């Protein structure tokens, strides 16, 4: 049967094609020739709206400043001090500053977490003991990890690092429903040390992580009936990609090679010789000779290491990781030339993530990139950063974020939360509700949005507030129509703190604020 997949060149020959799939229904607008619905009344009492047809203008149309575009892409949301710093350092200066994350002083955040979320520094043995003592299956330590993840994303000065933590946590997705407290160690010891390092190091760290081995059933896989779960996903999701050139037989062969990869009662990696298949294997064209019963554990384990080396050195891995990173940092449909260059950077540097980021995030690439839709987590962090939310307890704002369907480490399947418009865009009411609730936060024991100092100053008038909203939420690039609408809303009622907070919620609920 002929391959029904349309080749890339055929796709390119239909200019609007990608846009149809990327933007979904938006493409209909041009064909239908319908105009925008601005000004038409809303059927609030069950009166149906006319068929809605959106604009074809990308939300990035007003984003003229390359530095601001960079800050949008490599931070968890615009924030005045960060924008000022980026402008001071310039495009390349700021990118290098964020790439060199370990040189950025982050002691304030580290100190907050050490004091308030102490379980993050516990060993797996301690976490296990705490779970046993509390009889909570690790729930509290996982809660602390979730609190810390949001807190760091909002307040860490290593903003690009946090963006990449989010990316790699999805790439090496682990659901805590299965991995429980082991994920706390995985986040600390496997993900965070490598997010701006060498990709192969992260794969190897993940392959020896108790949380991952447990999540994908590797820890109990043994000959003669190995468990194929991890062997499949390390190829399909972590390295080669689903079209990366392996077969069902390669899955079976790799599962045999990896038999014995497990962890001990303290969560430390261990190789179980009794579980290992010592017979010969043929994996992706490479023969692994049979081993004698006298082979040491290190010798038996070494075939797994060699197979992982095969995977991380494979050109298809370079391409798969390059494509995925370009989608994350640049555009849902990155230009082929960017993917090629990024894959080449991977191969030339042994999978150096910083080198790949530099290749992807050139000013030219970024100025040509359409906006991406913030996922709920990113929407929450950008709201908290823009409003300079004061956090006195880490859990309430995190639980508010959870209501938008992206609780961290809670995606059950191993592919991680989707990064697609069509998955998230329908969950819009949840964002409006979040913004409405959060804009009213005014507690000095949990969470406060301090409108008096952040929005009603320096000028405590409607115009002054809208000006601050423009600067804080939109980097000064809010569309004219939005600024006018916000001002009109604020002036339509008696000027008050409540009205200011409603207006702030509407600004965060606006279409423009959903994109980065």
């Amino acid at each position, binding site marked *: 049967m002929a391959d029904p997949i349309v080749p890339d060149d055929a796709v390119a020959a239909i200019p609007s094609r990608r846009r149809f799939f990327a933007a979904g229904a938006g493409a209909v607008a041009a064909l239908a020739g319908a105009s925008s619905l601005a000004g038409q009344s809303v059927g609030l009492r069950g009166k149906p709206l006319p068929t809605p047809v959106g604009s074809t203008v990308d939300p990035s149309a007003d984003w003229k400043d390359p530095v601001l575009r960079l800050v949008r892409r490599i931070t968890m949301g615009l924030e005045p001090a960060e924008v000022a710093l980026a402008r001071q350092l310039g495009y390349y200066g700021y990118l290098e500053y964020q790439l060199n994350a370990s040189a950025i002083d982050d002691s304030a955040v580290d100190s907050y977490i050490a004091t308030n979320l102490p379980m993050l520094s516990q060993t797996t043995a301690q976490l296990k003991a705490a779970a046993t003592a509390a009889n909570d299956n690790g729930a509290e330590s996982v809660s602390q990890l979730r609190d810390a993840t949001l807190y760091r994303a909002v307040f860490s000065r290593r903003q690009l690092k946090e963006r990449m933590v989010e990316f790699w946590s999805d790439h090496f997705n682990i659901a805590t429903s299965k991995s429980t407290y082991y994920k706390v160690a995985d986040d600390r010891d496997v993900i965070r040390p490598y997010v701006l390092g060498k990709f192969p190091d992260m794969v190897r760290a993940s392959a020896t992580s108790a949380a991952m081995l447990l999540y994908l059933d590797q820890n109990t896989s043994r000959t003669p009936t190995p468990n194929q779960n991890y062997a499949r996903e390390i190829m399909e999701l972590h390295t080669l990609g689903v079209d990366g050139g392996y077969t069902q037989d390669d899955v079976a062969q790799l599962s045999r090679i990896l038999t014995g990869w497990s962890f001990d009662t303290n969560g430390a990696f261990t190789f179980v010789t009794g579980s290992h298949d010592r017979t010969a294997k043929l994996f992706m064209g490479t023969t692994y000779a049979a081993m004698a019963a006298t082979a040491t554990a290190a010798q038996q384990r070494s075939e797994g290491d060699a197979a992982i080396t095969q995977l991380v050195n494979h050109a298809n891995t370079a391409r798969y990781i390059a494509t995925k990173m370009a989608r994350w940092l640049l555009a849902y449909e990155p230009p082929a030339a960017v993917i090629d260059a990024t894959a080449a950077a991977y191969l030339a540097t042994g999978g150096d993530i910083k080198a790949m980021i530099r290749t992807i995030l050139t000013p030219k690439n970024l100025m040509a990139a359409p906006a991406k839709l913030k996922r709920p987590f990113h929407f929450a962090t950008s709201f908290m950063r823009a409003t300079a939310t004061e956090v006195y307890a880490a859990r309430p704002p995190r639980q508010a974020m959870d209501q938008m369907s992206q609780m961290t480490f809670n995606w059950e*399947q191993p*592919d991680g939360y989707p990064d697609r418009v069509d998955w998230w865009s329908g969950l819009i009411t949840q964002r409006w509700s979040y913004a409405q609730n959060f804009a009213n936060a005014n507690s000095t024991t949990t969470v406060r949005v301090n409108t008096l100092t952040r929005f009603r100053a320096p000028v405590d008038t409607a115009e002054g507030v809208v000006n601050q909203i423009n600067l804080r939420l939109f980097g000064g690039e809010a569309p004219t129509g939005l600024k006018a*609408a916000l001002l009109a809303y604020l002036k339509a009622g008696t000027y008050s703190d409540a009205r200011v907070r*409603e207006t702030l919620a509407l600004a965060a609920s606006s279409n423009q604020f959903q994109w980065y």
Partner: protein
Amino acid sequence: MSETLPETGCSEYQSLSRRDVFRTGLGVGIAAILPSWLPNVVMAQSASSRDIIVSVFLSGGMDGMSLVVPFGDPDYYTGRPNLAIARPDAAGTGPKATALDNFFGFSPGMMPLMPAYTAGELLVAHATGSVDPSRSHFDAQRYIEAGKPRDLSIASGWLGRHLATMAPMKAGAPLRAMSLTSGLPRTLLGAPKTLPITSPATYTIGGDANTAAARAQFIANDYATATDPIAANALDAVNTIALLKSVNFTGYTTQNGAAYPTTAFGNAMKSAAALIKADVGVEAIHAFLGGWDTHNQQGPIATLDGGYMHTQMLQLSSTLAAFHADVIQGTTSANVTVVVISEFGRNARENGNRGTDHGRGNVAFALGKKINGGKVLTNGWPGLARENLESGQDLRVTLDHRDILAEIVQNRLGNSNLSVIFPDYTPRFRGVTKA
């Protein structure tokens, strides 16, 4: 590829006109944009006897052979020494299958569905699935949801294209389809007036009631100039907030003594029931139940490995049984048909962890008054002897799941645009629906 599943549509696919349908079919207002020269796409009109459809996806790769046991195949017992469910006529008082016919039986965990089966309103299909051999969760699920295997250029879903080529069941309905999930699944992509709603009972913006209308108006105006799909989503959302406020979810009373489990899936199906009974024009509902990726300590009976799979099956069957009593046998303005599918089945043989790895052929269910139930439908049982297994490990697929869906779409949903909904596939109707 299986010889019993001929794929004949490849050349037809090359036609540009057909592809245009899928390119543009993602959006709202498809009537306005379907090319008039495309003779085989006729906007189906609302038929008075049309069913509401509820689509349930069991994600993770449900082990169909644990749900519906092929006790008539001795190789089932050879391949699963620890996991097999005993024959109905097995000696002793331990857990055993209950016969559905002389070959297949329900696991103990599926017994809550026996009344629906004996009422002739539950159809079980076996050795069914996709013609594509992928054992990747994500590819397999994508192909099933898209309604065509292997074609990555199709972004929309089969149910989305059904709705896009069908006039609304209720004129002017603000919401035609809803997914009770934390994001919109591909199955419904392309459907007009469709939203993912995790909790219909609490679907609101909140804040001061005195300013609620003005704030909603602000938002609707703002998103009117957004790009789609978010523009359409936002405007539908504003209207849906008002719509769902009129539905009493929290005070909903079931019929016929139906009791939904108080799980996320149970609550979702109960919300679906409330919405259907409210008769507000929602004509398609999608729900999902995960947790089927049982590589390890599967436990298909209560006494094995904590009975994980047994509990999963009970949750599924009790929820569907409640929905059957409450909705299918209850009072509704339209008939309701439920379809239940998963991305693939699992290995015929258990692995060393008393679990099962990713496989192929699987069970699917259809439930409804107009479903030709009370039987186990197969297109020939491929057998579990090693030489009959796909790749030496899996139950072969002999019944394309699209045959089941397509017959329901045409006969129960009144939409005959099957070449749009299941592109390049000529489904064979197999008596899934009643005349």
